[in-house]
């Protein structure tokens, strides 16, 4: 009987067409991810070359005053994307991957955005995460919405209930055939991704695979539950599609607007305003106010007194420092608010498989907000390191030509995180059980009818 069921499945035009469609979409999505990755990598390579040339050129022009030279010199820190990033572009297309900063006021530099076409962002990326989260459920719905109802509508169900010892098992077999087909499609797409993106079989990739498997299982469980209602094919199709719409469009949008309204980020603008005033107002103040604050921040530089000149680089960089120091409170508040947003989203996501899967994929591929916030923190440290290295040189008026300028290569930020398996898989597992149990009970009851 199972052979016939397989034959029957493969004869269905809808089944074959939708499987081919998902394979095509999956393969396209991998290439879109790869294109994105390549663009990032090209930009990183270009930045490395540019930094070398940029330092070389400016060192020639401004060879007399190291203070003036450092006014222009930019140093880059790169948030290196992993190849896995191609599977879920996440927030990487909005947030910068490369920070190029001078040792001046950092708060004025680190929020500079990348160049992007906002219409692309609005449309969204057709990456693997989209295929998994939006399209795979549709495939599952298309393949299983009439699993039971077609037999009833075709008047074959009565035959089956009479002939088969266990009609329920027949349903399971039909569902299993579809599950095998869907998981085979997933395997083809992920296998293709492994080859095209040269992915390593590491914990992060295995986590992506497990998450995908569980997410798909959730939709099978949902279809199974809907099947147990004994409704007509049309009702099944409409209700499953409504669930899909609820989970992919309505719930995330409502959650998003809740988050935005509940946790707005006015601190961003305040930071922008305060860092600017914090620095500029110092030009019109007694220099002592600035340098005293500077010495309080860096007691180790007290040994460099303020030169008795109208303009000095010590005073200038102390003023720049004050931009950061004055905006610090707002900047920290902004970081805290964004971390809070991240935490609240993760909480909201747990019972909503679409949001949950997307956020987890972003986490695993280092393309979420938390990765960007970590990168910003790392930018702070990078910037501070450069400052502490160059401040004494500037204050001592070190000779430009005696410095080793070749040592300043592009630096990389990368953070390895352990996969938290239970947090990753448990929420979906719970939802699957919650759907399977009532579905099973409903169908059992039917058998006895």
């Amino acid at each position: 009987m199972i052979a016939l069921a397989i034959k029957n499945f493969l004869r269905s035009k809808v089944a074959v067409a939708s499987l081919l469609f998902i394979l095509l979409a999956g393969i396209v999505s991998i290439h879109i991810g790869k294109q994105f990755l390549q663009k990032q990598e090209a930009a990183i390579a270009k930045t490395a070359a540019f930094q070398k040339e940029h330092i070389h050129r400016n060192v020639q022009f401004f060879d007399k005053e190291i203070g003036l030279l450092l006014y222009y010199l930019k140093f880059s820190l790169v948030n290196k994307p992993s190849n896995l990033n191609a599977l879920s572009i996440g927030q990487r297309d909005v947030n910068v991957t490369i920070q190029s900063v001078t040792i001046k006021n950092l708060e004025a530099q680190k929020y500079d955005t990348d160049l992007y076409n906002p219409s692309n962002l609005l449309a969204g990326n057709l990456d693997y995460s989209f295929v998994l989260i939006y399209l795979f459920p549709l495939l599952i719905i298309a393949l299983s919405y009439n699993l039971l109802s077609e037999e009833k509508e075709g008047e074959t169900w009565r035959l089956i209930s009479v002939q088969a010892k266990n009609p329920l098992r027949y349903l399971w077999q039909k569902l299993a055939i579809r599950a095998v087909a869907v998981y085979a499609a997933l395997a083809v797409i992920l296998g293709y991704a492994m080859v095209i993106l040269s992915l390593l079989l590491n914990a992060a990739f295995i986590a992506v695979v497990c998450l995908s498997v569980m997410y798909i299982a959730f939709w099978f469980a949902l279809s199974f539950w809907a099947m147990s209602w004994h409704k007509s094919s049309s009702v099944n199709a409409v209700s499953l599609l409504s669930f899909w719409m609820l989970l992919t469009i309505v719930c995330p949008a409502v959650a998003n607007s809740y988050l935005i309204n509940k946790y707005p980020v006015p601190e961003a603008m305040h930071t922008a305003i305060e860092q600017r005033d914090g620095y500029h107002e110092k030009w019109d103040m007694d220099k002592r106010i600035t340098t005293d604050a500077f010495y309080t921040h860096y007691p180790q530089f007290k040994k460099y007194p303020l030169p008795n000149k109208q303009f000095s680089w010590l005073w200038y960089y102390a003023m720049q420092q004050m931009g950061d120091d004055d905006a610090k409170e707002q900047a920290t508040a902004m970081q805290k608010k964004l971390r809070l947003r991240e935490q609240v989203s993760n909480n909201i996501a747990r019972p909503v498989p679409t949001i949950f899967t997307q956020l987890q994929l972003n986490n695993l591929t280092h393309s979420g907000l938390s990765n960007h916030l970590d990168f910003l923190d790392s930018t702070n440290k990078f910037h501070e390191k450069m400052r502490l290295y160059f401040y004494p040189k500037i204050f001592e008026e070190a000779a430009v030509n005696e410095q080793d300028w070749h040592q300043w290569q592009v630096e990389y930020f990368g953070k390895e995180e352990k996969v938290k398996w239970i947090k990753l898989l448990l929420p979906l597992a719970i939802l699957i059980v919650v759907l399977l149990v009532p579905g099973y009970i409903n169908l059992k009851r039917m058998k006895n009818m």
Partner: protein
Amino acid sequence: MRKEVLILLAKQVLNNAVRNKAVLALCGIILLLMAYAAFSGYSAYKKQTESRKKNEAEIRHNWEHMPDKHPHRMAHYGYIAFRPKAALSFFDFGIESYTGNAVFLEAHRQNTVNFSEAGFSTGLLRFGEISIALVLQLLVPLLLFFLGFNTIAAERENNTLKVLLSQGANWKEIIAGKSLGLLTMALLLLLPAVIMTVGIWALQNNSSSTGDEVMRLLWLLVSYTVFFAIVSVIAVTVSAISKTAKMALISLIGIWLLFGIVLPRATQALGNWLHPSPSKIEFETAVEKDLIQKGDSHNPDDAYYKALKDSMLKAYKASSVEQLPFNYGGFQMKEGEKISAQIYTKHLDSLLDTYESQNGVARATSFVNPFMAIKNVSMAFSGTDFGAYTRFQKEAEAYRYRLAQHMNDLQMKLISNKKLADTAKPYSISKAYWAAFPDFSYKPLSQKEVMKNEIISIIALVFWIAVLLIIINRLSKKLKAI
């Protein structure tokens, strides 16, 4: 076609709809979501506008209260321009969540527009936002498809279609009448959307609202009516050509998914692939390369600036810049600003052209996908589309340029050419000059410019009406009752 027959058929569709509990439930959900979208859109507009106005006032106040100083210091102090939310943004959020909200404007440098909602997002935003426009563009069509799939197919299955035809109704009347019924249903849902939109618009109406906005609202109303007419006819036509009602439903769901969800994303990706845009580093190095080629003001031995100096000295018969009747530093910066702004604008324009070409690919598919046409038209008339954003970006850059050059002019006129001793107090001018420089303000695109931008989408909507009329005409000769 007879009017009575059309009205009769349309009424039948409406009666069926009202009797269907699932449809009523869906209508309820749609209305609820619409109300929610209107509320959240309005509160976002109100909050953003209030905080923007407060920030703008602070920026202006600080600007005017800067003490006497050297004008070039003022050019570096600069300005922060905030992007106002469009008055109709609560109706269609468009791309506003993805564009920055503030840009720092200073001499010599074109900064990026920073702090977009997308940048603060945890990734939730990328699922999309619910605005009244989204409900009208996706959910109402889905309802029409759910209602429309059995308009003809079910009558055929129940054998009532034969009766209908034998009683004298012709195919054209049947398709038109049933479509009219669906359209009426859609308009019944459009009505609360219009009431909410006009209500909120009146609520937030400040004196600056103009006849232009009234026209935009009217155009939105017309566009959505046309769109719903297209969707209604598609639903009825598919129902007419499908063998069973079930097949009609599956086809319509497929069409909805393809038009509403898959194609917009896929075509934008295609545009991205066909018209690759430069990365930030590529863009910046290209600008810098052009600048250095023209003349590098940082290079003390630069030929261009040397020649400029010599020509000035010659024209004024002076032997050094100190003898010139104006401040030479100001003059040189003015020249530098002119050159760098020209080069930057050239590159920016070409970048925006690339983005336009990317968007153009998706826009061109409006002839295949009416959902794309309404999406673009709706955003454009709401003032939340790509065109509206680039207008802000360009106006901000124009203001930045005026500010920098104004300060250079003041320096040339009012600052002495004599170099000061190291310990002397620097030159400064009166703070009265700051207040005299006008605040940043900008005029959004007019309704006519919007139409010019979206002419292709508008033509596509008209094209769809024409194509559907032709299809109805053809089908009415071919369709069978059984």
